[in-house]
């Protein structure tokens, strides 16, 4: 009986949170199209999101390319299929590994930052102060941040993919004596628009999810410093879960289109 009550309470909390988040997302879509627009703040947020993550995504991408190629080489060598390396690496990274890994890194870096920043603004009444000074804080703080992550994440992912492929090319060049030109020719032979476009569309959704969850958790943060910590932590945990759900849906939908 106790267990069923606990399960009921937890599921109720879970679904009410999903409902609240959906309402928060709807409010975003309503506010994003209505004037006045906070262009200056949007550009500042885009710069912050990009600047915060560019080195992290770059370094991770480079190492990802190196490691992926080093790990795959022995297996491909065994089958005499090492010439397939550029195709295999490029398809795996561009289609799946790149977007998911870089989005997870950005969720940790950007999502938690947004959660903590808005959370601390909430507990120190800065959001209330904004509201009473006649500025819509949802528009100024939330809309700009969600738009910034939605626009910047695809760029960060494309950059990360490119650096990962360069890392892979470096290993192939050193170990397999494959020239960069040959490597990238093979990469572009293997890659189709049907690989890049769905992955890029998926990246927009990843960016939206990172911004949305970070802002939702921060904006609805409980009072006190504990609330700020929880908002920051929950932003990362929920976003990571949501990223995999979005990834699954995206792959599923892409698969249907490919089959058509």
């Amino acid at each position, binding site marked *: 009986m106790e267990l069923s009550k606990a399960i009921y309470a937890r599921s109720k909390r879970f679904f009410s949170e999903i409902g609240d988040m959906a309402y928060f997302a709807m409010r975003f879509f309503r506010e994003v199209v209505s004037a006045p627009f906070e262009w200056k703040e949007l550009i500042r947020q885009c710069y912050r999101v990009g600047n915060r993550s560019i080195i992290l995504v770059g370094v991770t991408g480079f190492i990802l390319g190196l490691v992926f190629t080093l790990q795959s080489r022995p297996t491909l060598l065994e089958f005499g299929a090492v010439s397939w390396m550029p195709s295999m690496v490029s398809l795996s990274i561009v289609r799946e590994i790149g977007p998911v890994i870089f989005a997870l890194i950005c969720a940790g870096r950007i999502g938690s930052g947004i959660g903590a920043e808005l959370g601390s603004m909430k507990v120190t009444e*800065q959001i209330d*102060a904004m*509201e*009473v000074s006649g500025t819509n804080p949802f528009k100024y703080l939330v809309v700009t941040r969600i738009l910034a992550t939605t626009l910047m994440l695809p760029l960060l992912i494309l950059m990360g993919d490119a650096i990962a492929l360069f890392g892979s090319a470096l290993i192939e060049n050193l170990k397999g004596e494959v020239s960069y030109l040959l490597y990238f020719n093979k990469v572009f032979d293997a890659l189709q628009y049907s690989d890049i476009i769905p992955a890029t569309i998926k990246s927009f959704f990843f960016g939206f999810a990172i911004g949305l969850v970070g802002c939702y958790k921060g904006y609805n943060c409980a009072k006190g410093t504990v609330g700020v910590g929880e908002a920051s932590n929950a932003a990362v945990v929920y976003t990571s879960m949501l990223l995999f759900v979005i990834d699954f849906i995206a792959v599923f939908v892409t698969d249907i289109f490919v089959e058509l």
Partner: protein
Amino acid sequence: MKETNENKQPVLEIKSLFKSFGDNHVLNGFNLKLYKGENLVVMGKSGSGKSVMIKCLVGLMAADSGTIKIQDFDITSLGQKELDVLRTEIGFLFQGSALYDSMTVRENLNFPLRRHKNKVDGNKNTEELVLEALDNVGLASAIDLMPAELSGGMKRRVALARALILKPKIILYDEPTTGLDPITAKEIIQLMRDVQKKYNTSSLIITHDVDCARVISNRMILLVDGIDYAHGTFEELSKSEDPKIKAFFKN
């Protein structure tokens, strides 16, 4: 004061305000009238609902029932845009100052001017308005500092300058002296009086600080059990024999 007020139209009026959080009934029919040019102090114990009342007043919190009229506008019936415009007529000094900590003092003061500069003197540029507001609180030298570099009293002064920058007609003070040493508290109270004199504003001051109430109030309301339990001047209330009122003044 009381007799003259009766013929005047209030600039701010609360009628039968109710607000509950679950079973916790914080406000049970609170009433208030603020007249032009007066300093009205609402005093109550911690947790008596003073902050809830003031948040309902500016639309930060929705009341369960009751009417709140500011300059004849019922704020519960206003849309977001109309409410934003009306809010420029109200300055709000938060208990914790609530300065934007990622911005400098200048940017903090610029912030309300971004959208509502047309409301204030059109001949002055933003920089002049910011400097004037900081001069009023004696902190022009702190213009480029970050809030983290300011002391508690300085933060409160900058927050007051920010609340005044749009030249509001009504100023709401939420515990203006809480957390300050007695000397700084006195300075802030003096500043509040100067501001009132200079701009002829009406002020609603929420406090539990008896000294602050004594110095600044023209009229007082005691908030007890969620209602406006007693009205009167500081002298009248401090002489009351009612035990609930006496409890506020016994020290």
